[in-house]
């Protein structure tokens, strides 16, 4: 029991250090991103409609893109028939980014907020933002 003081001090110090990130950031949640979706191409659209509904795209765009990738690269099928019957070319660069040309707003804001790092842009070419 001679080392009782040291052990308790060490334990307290350890707990303080380990929980440091929690109590310093307590009550200071990072604000959720509010990306500006407007681009010139979108403003010129008569009907502001993505290939699928906004809610679906928000939740499932990554699955949709993966499905597109597999269909185009491995099956050679390049035309997507949307839920409403419209046809689109399955292409990140030629379809998605034609409207959503503001990658820093449209892609990066939420991906950074969530700590997601998709590696699309090492090969695919991001549009020049004006």
């Amino acid at each position, binding site marked *: 029991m001679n080392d009782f003081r040291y052990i308790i001090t060490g334990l307290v110090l350890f707990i303080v250090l380990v929980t440091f990130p929690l109590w310093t950031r307590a009550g200071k949640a990072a604000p959720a991103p509010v990306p500006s979706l407007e681009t010139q191409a979108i403003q010129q659209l008569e009907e502001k409609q993505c290939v699928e509904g906004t809610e679906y795209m928000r939740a499932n765009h990554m699955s949709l893109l993966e499905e597109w990738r597999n*269909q185009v690269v*491995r*099956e050679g*099928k*390049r035309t997507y028939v949307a839920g409403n019957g419209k046809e689109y070319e399955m292409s990140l660069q030629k379809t998605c980014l034609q409207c959503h040309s503001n990658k820093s707003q449209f892609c990066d804001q939420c991906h950074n907020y969530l700590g997601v790092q998709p590696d699309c842009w*090492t090969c*695919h070419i991001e549009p020049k933002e004006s």
Partner: protein
Amino acid sequence: MTTSRRSFIKAGGACLLGLTLWPAVKSFAGNNAGNIENPGAPAGKRWGLVIDMQKCWPKYQEGCRDCFLACRKAHNIPDIADKEEEIKWLWTEPFENAFPEQEHEYIAAGIKGKPFIVLCNHCNNPPCVRVCPTKATFKRRDGIVMMDYHRCIGCRYCMAACPYGARSFNFSDPRPYIKEIDPAYPTREKGVVEKCNFCAERVDLGLVPVCVEACRAGALIFGDLEEPNSVVRKILSGRYTILRKPELGTHPSVFYLV
């Protein structure tokens, strides 16, 4: 008919197993009718290319490099001067390198040392596909040997397997070496292998490869090898053609008229 308690429970168990497996069957065996092939694309069964070097050489002598430049531009191919690291989709080799087993000491002067246009042969029995551990290289139903760069891990087994040297490895980020990036086609990244894709992105839309379109001499002829009335089959049946390293049994889809 009487059902014993035992067989009733057995049948119930089988039904339960079926119900449990059904979602898995649906997700693995289901098909997605939502995606369609381009109706304008001809349903080729095995795409092939005939290269008429006699038509090419006069233009080549004059300095024509249209096919190489068109390919480079359309696919964002980097222009790396270092021979150890250069990226080659479509290039030339002297006769004795392209056809080493057909070279001999009395070969016609019109052939000896002449440049031959070479590219991926899109073999019917491709050794690169067999060795790829991730199935990043695969053969499409229309015969095009294609790469899925998303899956390439850069192991370079395919480069060792390819007897034609048709594959190049990206030792560094290729982007600084691309003069003018075409935003319609992706680049590659450091650490993946790349090669000619027979312009699969154009073939799917019903177009011919960009090198064929660019050739002013009409030396490159593209068509379906399985279609008996196609242009390529007519040329192949009418004139003597040679293949690169036919003794290896890879069955190339690129033929040469000399």
